């Protein structure tokens, strides 16, 4: 099962609002805990190991490595 990165959310804006709402009135520690619980719940729902590894890989790639960041040039779109 390949990780689906094409549009798949039934109600994208409602989902995003709910996600942000989940954190309302939480301090940073509680927010982090809620995020972690959410990741674990979703991971179990997905279940397939290869799919999860693919998502983990994409998430990690989405965070620039501090060691290589300095050397890279990110031209703004003209």
């Amino acid at each position: 099962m390949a990780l689906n990165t094409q549009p798949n959310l039934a109600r994208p804006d409602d989902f995003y609002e709910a996600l942000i709402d989940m954190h309302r009135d939480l301090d940073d520690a509680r927010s982090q805990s809620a995020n972690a619980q959410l990741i674990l719940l979703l991971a179990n729902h997905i279940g397939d190991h290869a799919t999860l590894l693919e998502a983990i890989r994409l998430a990690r790639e989405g965070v620039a490595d501090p060691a290589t960041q300095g050397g890279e040039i990110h031209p703004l779109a003209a």
Partner: protein
Amino acid sequence: MSIDYQRLSFEYRPCREQSAQDMHSGAAQPAYPVIVVGAGPVGLATAIDLAQQGVPVVLVDDDCSLSTGSRAICFSKRSLDIFDRLGCGQRMVDKGISWNVGKVFLKDELVYSFNLQPEAGHHRPAFINLQQYYVEGFLLERAQQMPNIEIRWKSKVVGVEQSGTPGTCDAAVTLTVDTPDGQYALRGRYVVAADGSRSPIRNLMGLDSKGVTFKDRFLIADVKMEADFPTERWFWFDPPFHPNQSVLLHRQPDNVWRIDFQLGWDADPVLEKTPERVIPRVRALLGPDAKFELEWVSVYTFSCLRMERFRHGNVLFAGDSAHGVSPFGARGANSGVQDAENLAWKLAMVLEGKASDALLDTYASEREFAADENIRNSTRSTDFITPKSPVSRVFRDAVLKLARHHPFARQLANSGRLSVPAVLSGSPLNTPDSNSFEGAMVPGAACVDAPVQAAREPAWLLAHLGQQFTGVLFCGEDGIDAQTEGALNRLLTGAIPMKLVVVACGEAPAPAIADAKIVRDVEGVASARYDAQPGTFYLIRPDQHVCARWRRLDASAVENALKRALCVEGTA
């Protein structure tokens, strides 16, 4: 009447080399087949197994007593199966506390319970708890029954020198042994270094064991008390009586209870060992009125590490000298006993000239693979119990919070993944399946037990397997045909000594094969666990691991599998 194994002291006696060397200093003396260094559980098990295979052993130890303190207390089903083969399993089980169930608590709430042996039909429980000094004492008493084991106490190895061409019969090891009467030279063809985590032999050879040391400290308090906790492994995360840390409670024989408190890296290891600090911690768990005595107290840290290679010439490292793990998972002593079993038959076969020296390379490769599996499991448990980063802590706590209400999270809660034998599926000694099989008994797996009948009495399958190569033929209502009988007779008279077990089905008449042990699979459990059909044949290694299997016996195929399992050339 009971023996206090912790207080036993064994007498040093000068040995024959010492008097001989007084007269002919430096003269070449004959080499013993095997010298085992270290009379702990691993060295003793190695010596007994070799002696049972007919190999005389000299066992040297730098001390003259058994383990001080309970130390390793959890012995796995696989270790018990091995101790059974070594002739002292029943004593261990009779004295030990059998258990199968573990419980994990968050604060004072049960979040997860596991049963390590949910199915019936096994001779031995998943685990017994038994103080290390009993295990060593029972092994020692077994070793002392064997005329071909010579134990030399107060004999410390202070020098190691290898000579001869590696891989040939003239390769040997000369140890310099220091005794109360001075030093002498002790020559052996092979040396098994079972001399513990600080292995003097490893140091003398300039080798090391590398890995990760965890920044956490734990307190073991073994207390003696009358208590009515169930015979289960209880593990708390963040209990009210020891906030923010973990605690493990485990029952041992003689009303001794193991309590293991996580202390954190900043704890003072000297101060935390004092009764003034320990007693209040124990009282917090047991209640203000609890009556108990401290039996043994220890503060420890741990590392997950291993030597890069377990074989260096004719020196073979086994147990803690070769690898180390955290205690969570009981993978230290248990994996060492499996090292011993893996090594003993291979040494015996090489010394008898039935296998090539290359077979000993597979001791190293198989047990390095197993060590990696143990280290991986142990490291994962430790990362859960002692998170190494703030985000790791966040996920750990999230798992525990979810585990209260959501079953899926319980399988992530990791208080120790308890020792099971590695499946050596990549071993070069296996012959890959050429027929289709289901189930767990793949080539490389340790054989599982099953209830059978032998001579109309209840018996266990494992008791009939191993020690030497074993052929197991599953046989249906129709008995066996002439072709199969011919193949069996050819194997039983072959160059490699082999024994034969026929698993007969139900009440059908037993086939008449001279020299075969007949057991009856009256409940059908053996056939189910081995996915056997009438005619299925398993070749089992002397250490009770599956070597090869076929749906129909073919003597040539078995002979080739035997050659492969002994690293002998000439496979057709």
